[in-house]
């Protein structure tokens, strides 16, 4: 018997199968516009990878913004799932900084991955993966270009606007002023980091801090985060799958209890 965690996020959907010892398989797909369908497809894919069928799944927990669209045994919020997933990978973690496609979260952890407190961003896209993605269009770069560009930057430019749309206009003005692409890429990453660290400051930044979510793959953000925190956040090998992993472990616990 196996247990499945399914995380339907705004940008990507992840399914993980675990048994009573280890991870059996995982699958990751872009979310698209139909969370119900993508949930089904990702589940199908992961079962196929593990050479299993739906009837082999003893318990399935869905999480992420599309969790109520999935055919799951139960739904659990992404906050609890992130906490549980991180605790499984990095047991000493005390804080999780998760920047996803549509929101950012700060989770303060107690013993055994218990959530003590959490904060989430407001409705604006600033401080999320979506913001970074939007700005790539303005800067005519790819997401993976942020890392090298940030390291080349020599001038610190601060984007004064906290709103994603106004920040875009500001960026356009800065381009017109002839500012260098690398400095603008750094300004974008800096604004995201500033925004999430303000959120984290509401709880107070606690070490060891684990960085998860799609944005944790962005080297530009990691570089600036290190500078601003004065220490390196811990990044799991695959920061995109932690919520689904947590969901799978919760599924196993629920099934056995």
């Amino acid at each position: 018997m196996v247990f499945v965690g399914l995380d339907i996020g705004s940008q990507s959907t992840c399914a993980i199968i675990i048994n009573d010892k280890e991870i059996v398989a995982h699958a990751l797909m872009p979310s698209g516009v139909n969370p119900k369908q993508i949930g089904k497809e990702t589940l199908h894919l992961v079962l196929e990878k593990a050479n299993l069928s739906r009837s082999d799944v003893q318990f399935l927990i869905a999480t992420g913004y599309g969790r109520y669209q999935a055919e799951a045994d139960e739904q659990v919020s992404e906050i609890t799932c992130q906490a549980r997933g991180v605790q499984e990978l990095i047991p000493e973690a005390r804080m999780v900084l998760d920047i996803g496609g549509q929101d950012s979260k700060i989770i303060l952890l107690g013993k055994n991955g218990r959530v003590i407190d959490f904060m989430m961003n407001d409705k604006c896209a600033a401080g999320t993966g979506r913001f970074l993605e939007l700005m790539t269009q303005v800067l005519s770069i790819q997401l993976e270009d942020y890392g090298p560009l940030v390291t080349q930057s020599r001038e610190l430019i601060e984007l004064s606007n906290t709103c994603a749309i106004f920040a875009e206009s500001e960026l356009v003005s800065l381009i017109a002023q002839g500012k260098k692409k690398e400095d603008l890429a750094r300004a974008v990453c800096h604004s995201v980091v500033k925004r999430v660290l303000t959120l984290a400051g509401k709880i107070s930044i606690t070490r060891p801090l684990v960085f998860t979510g799609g944005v944790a793959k962005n080297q530009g953000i990691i570089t600036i985060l290190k500078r601003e925190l004065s220490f390196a956040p811990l990044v799991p090998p695959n920061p995109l799958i932690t919520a689904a992993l947590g969901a799978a472990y919760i599924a196993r616990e629920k099934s056995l209890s």
Partner: protein
Amino acid sequence: MNLKTSTALSLARFFANRKSLFHLLKFYEWWLKRKFSEPTLPQTSYQLTIKTVRELYSHSRPVIWSSLFFPCEFIHAIGAIPFYPEITIGLVAALGFSNIPLESAEKNWYSQDLCSYHRAGVGMSLLKLFPRPDCLVATTSICRGTAGFFRSLADIWKIPCFLIDVPYQTTPEANNYVKNQLSSITSHISSQLNCQFRWEDAFSLSNSTVKTIQQIEALRKQKNFAIQPPTKNLDYLPYYFQFLGSPVSKLFFEKFLFHLQKLEKSPTKFHRLVWLHLKPFYPNQLTALLNEYHFDVVYDEFASVFWKPLEPEKPFESLTNKIISSQNLTVPEKRIDRVLHWCDQFQADGVIQFNQWGCRQSQGMNFLLKNTLQQKGYPVLLLDGDHIDKKFYSEEQLRTRIEAFHEMLEG
């Protein structure tokens, strides 16, 4: 504004200014009484609302507009009809059209950063949809923005506004300062409306209603039952503020007590919550989510009795005490002490505050509030949004926060 909305507004304004038409509501009230000989609590509340609408718009007595923390016993004592724009704007939002007055205010240079209670109140006045006031009375407690709000209203309606400046301190000098202002506006209003203040009845009704409220509080300490069904501000707010000191409030709370006494203790395990500030009035999923995740609001901050019994022989001293003690909601150490006291008394499992966009009074102390409560072992959830302006509402974000808070309490 499209043609349909514009026509509806013109019609609404036409009817709102036809006093005689509202007398016809008497027939509807009579029919309701006949149909519901033993009305439920919501039905009682509905009938009282219809009666109030008739009285306000038919202008059967002078209408005095007041800010939320101006004691309504003052208005009942002169026999006028109290009207609280900050409460009524909640009704406008509940009916789903607060966007119209909000837009009207914004078009007239009232910034989106202003509190939406005030913005929408100004908008309803600019549109002349609220009942015309004879005069305005307000205090700067608990919100300093009220002063500007009421000055704007006075300018729109071209009527006098009597504003009581309330100091933060509770010194004898502060008491005298407020008492002198109250005494002065009493004589002004008395001569302006040509009415006499009769404190005895209003104070006695208020005191006896407070005793009923205290009985309700005692029951809420034991039972899993919030001021609901459902948990809506409008189900209790007018009776704590607008009608206290009148038979309306007394009738409502007696019915509520009776209703509560009959309730059986629920077998379901609920998470007992103290609720700070108000909740969104516009149609939203908050109540449904609280129910879904087995949260029970056992105490509401705005339903607290914070004043001493009123003494008719010392009217100004009594009302001064009520006004000044309301400032405790804005002084961090006093407010936090009170919240801790409620948490203890009502055996709360956690605290939720629904932050109102632009509200400095409640949000200014969020850090202190959250830290202190957490140190004492009470988890706190701060929800950001707006009670009146639906632009700031996101159901999915609300669900995730409520759900995660529930999971946090479950451990």
